[in-house]
């Protein structure tokens, strides 16, 4: 197995002077090249866990390492510039064009404009957006799916090894969501990324991720491949995994198969 690229060891985080426990003694490893989905309901601490990795939030206790270094010893600004981050609703800057948004991190890193321009075109190809019509558009002129593709392109711009994604496809319609999920899975493989994706949708997690970590009330309940998890004797984990299966069976019964297959 590849060495872990991100490790959490006994990490804790509270808000409101200790009244709200967001992350409670979590230990977790993400290996190089792995696609990990973190699943949990709202308030389970999954988003906090993600943000601790690039120090958008600082941990109260425990240790987090990224590429072997304790994140506390790394300048948070530089740390963020080398980790791709995709925000829930895109988080695009409304006053910058698609090209301006995608090129922002290289620009912050001091890359030359001509080089950035080439990189933007590459990235547009990568996320399957036509260069000419989209380059100079403003975010409000794009559909939700297109915006999220730009969000992914922006996160990839500085060639990060790690991608952190906060419910990236949550707000999209099912078809777009499916297409985007598949496309990203392909990118993950092609670029050799290490991806941590937050989602509340178990089905999405099962379909996209190599491994799933399940969080509830700030604690890590279980982690493993879907088949490993299905053997868990935790009631919540069991319930969580039964739902997609039950839905799949009902869908199978309700939707008659078309064609000859």
């Amino acid at each position, binding site marked *: 197995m590849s060495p872990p690229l991100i490790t959490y060891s006994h990490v804790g985080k509270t808000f409101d002077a200790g009244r709200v426990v967001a992350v409670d003694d979590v230990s977790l490893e993400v290996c190089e090249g792995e696609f990990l989905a973190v699943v949990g309901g709202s308030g389970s601490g999954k988003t906090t866990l993600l943000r601790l990795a*690039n120090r*958008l939030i600082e941990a109260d206790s425990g240790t987090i390492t990224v590429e072997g270094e304790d994140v506390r010893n790394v300048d948070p*600004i*530089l740390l*963020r*510039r080398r980790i791709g*981050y995709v*925000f*829930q*609703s895109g*988080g*695009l*800057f*409304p*006053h910058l064009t698609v090209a301006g948004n995608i090129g*922002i*991190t290289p620009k*912050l*890193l001091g890359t030359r404009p001509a080089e950035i321009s080439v990189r933007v075109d590459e990235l547009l190809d990568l996320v399957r957006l036509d260069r000419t019509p989209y380059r100079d558009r*403003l975010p409000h002129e794009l559909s939700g799916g297109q915006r999220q593709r730009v969000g992914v392109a*922006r996160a990839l711009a500085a060639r990060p090894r790690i991608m952190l994604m906060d419910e990236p496809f949550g707000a999209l319609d099912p078809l777009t969501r499916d297409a985007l999920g598949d496309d990203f899975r392909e990118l993950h493989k092609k670029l050799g990324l290490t991806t941590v994706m937050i989602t509340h949708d178990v089905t999405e997690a099962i379909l996209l991720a190599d491994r799933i970590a399940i969080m509830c009330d700030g604690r890590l309940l279980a982690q493993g491949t879907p088949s490993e998890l299905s053997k868990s004797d935790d009631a919540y984990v069991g319930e969580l995994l039964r739902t997609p299966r039950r839905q799949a069976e009902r869908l199978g019964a309700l939707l008659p198969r078309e064609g000859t297959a």
Partner: protein
Amino acid sequence: MSTFADPRWGEALGHLPDYLGNHVRVSVAALVLGLLVSLPLAIIARHRPVLRGGLLGLASIVQTVPGLALLALFYPLLLALAALSLSWFGVGFSAFGFLPAVLALALYSMLPVLRNTITGLQGVDAAILEAAQGVGMTPRQSLFTVELPLALPVMMAGIRTSAVWVIGTATLSTPIGQTSLGNYIFAGLQTQNWVFVLFGCVAAAVLALAVDQLLALIENGLRNRSRFRATLGSVGIAALVVATLAPNLVRPQTNYIIGAKTFAEQYVLSALMAQRLKAAGLLATKREGLGSNVIFEALAADDIDFYIDYSGTLWANQFHRTDIKPRQELVAELKTMLARQNITLLGELGFENAYALVMPRKRAEQLGIRTIADLASRAANMSIAGDYEFFSRPEWAALRRAYGLSFRGQRQMQPDFMYAAVASGEVDVIAGYTSDGLIAKYDLVTLGDPRHAIPPYDAIMLLAPKRANDEALRKALAPLLGRIEIATMREANLRASGNDAASSPDAVAQWLWEKVGKK
């Protein structure tokens, strides 16, 4: 058509390059200074609730201070600072005109800019701020590449409000010696020249509207990310500033500055003195509509060269004397006191413009009132009106003390309106001026002062310290000394109170010269 055939339109238009240029200069300087202070303050305060509350509170309080008072307050403040700077660093500066006006107006401009900048910055979506952090921006990069550009439309709206306020309030900088479009309004109000009043108001409004529309164009361009509109607006503003300032740069420097207070007689006398200087081949400009306290300090500080004051006013207000002396003695003693400040009392003009209690002749006769002593017993059922400063002047305290005066009520009025008010019975008595032509016009009578509570008010000519030995100036002004009798001045003032072309200060001054100069 006949309305515009009035020569005063032409006269008003002639002043426009000077007044408008100065108005734009002081407004732009104040706005720029206001922005330079407000923007960094707003940025620093946006994440600090206590500082933010304090700043906005302070700026709001400044807004509640009437513009005229705020401007007037800066004059003594700067005067003290200038004196301090002179004694500490050996460098003095003029506390007159431009500087106090710019500082007061800049302070006035701060509230909308502060409030809108803070509101605009706070209105930036938290998710966007997080994204800025997430892509690896430093707080500074986030501020300049994300927060400020997104807050700019709201900030521009604040800058627009503040520009309109400053341009409007700048008309009030006339009394502290800064020439502005307010010169039309102050002069017009005092000399009943409605053409001037209207001209000044319209000019200030047009200027404010033009600037507001150009800034709106910039704001609109920023909001819709249209570089064309933003550039067009900026070019428009730049063109306006250059066009209004350019004529001022090529204007010849004038040698002498004549001061004038804010009433008709002063406008006529300053016009008369300007004409005399011109006749003597000396260049002069008038700084009119100056506040009573500002004008003396301005003379003492060499900011103006000469003006006409009244002996009793200086005696009581400047030197805080409560004793009363006969006319000649008082002037002589004043001369010595002024000389200690290096101010030259060149001489008396010949007439007195004293405060006097005035009432309708018929009513006075009916009630058998001839002196203030006669009035005292009936005052309890009467009301009195005076100008804006009378009731806080020492003369009023002296009058009440000497005669035990106690009126039913007292009101403050614009001097030009109080004669009509007493004539129509609106008030029973007014504190008028003995040289005012309206006394005769409305058939009013001045009441005697047998206990000499009111000091004499000889019109006297004062020269600034730097003009003490200016023979050319003394020679040009000499023909006016001791020549103007009270009856002549009254008639001149009556003429100036008309509202036709013949009543402009210049026309009246010419008439006056014909009366007194030929002697």
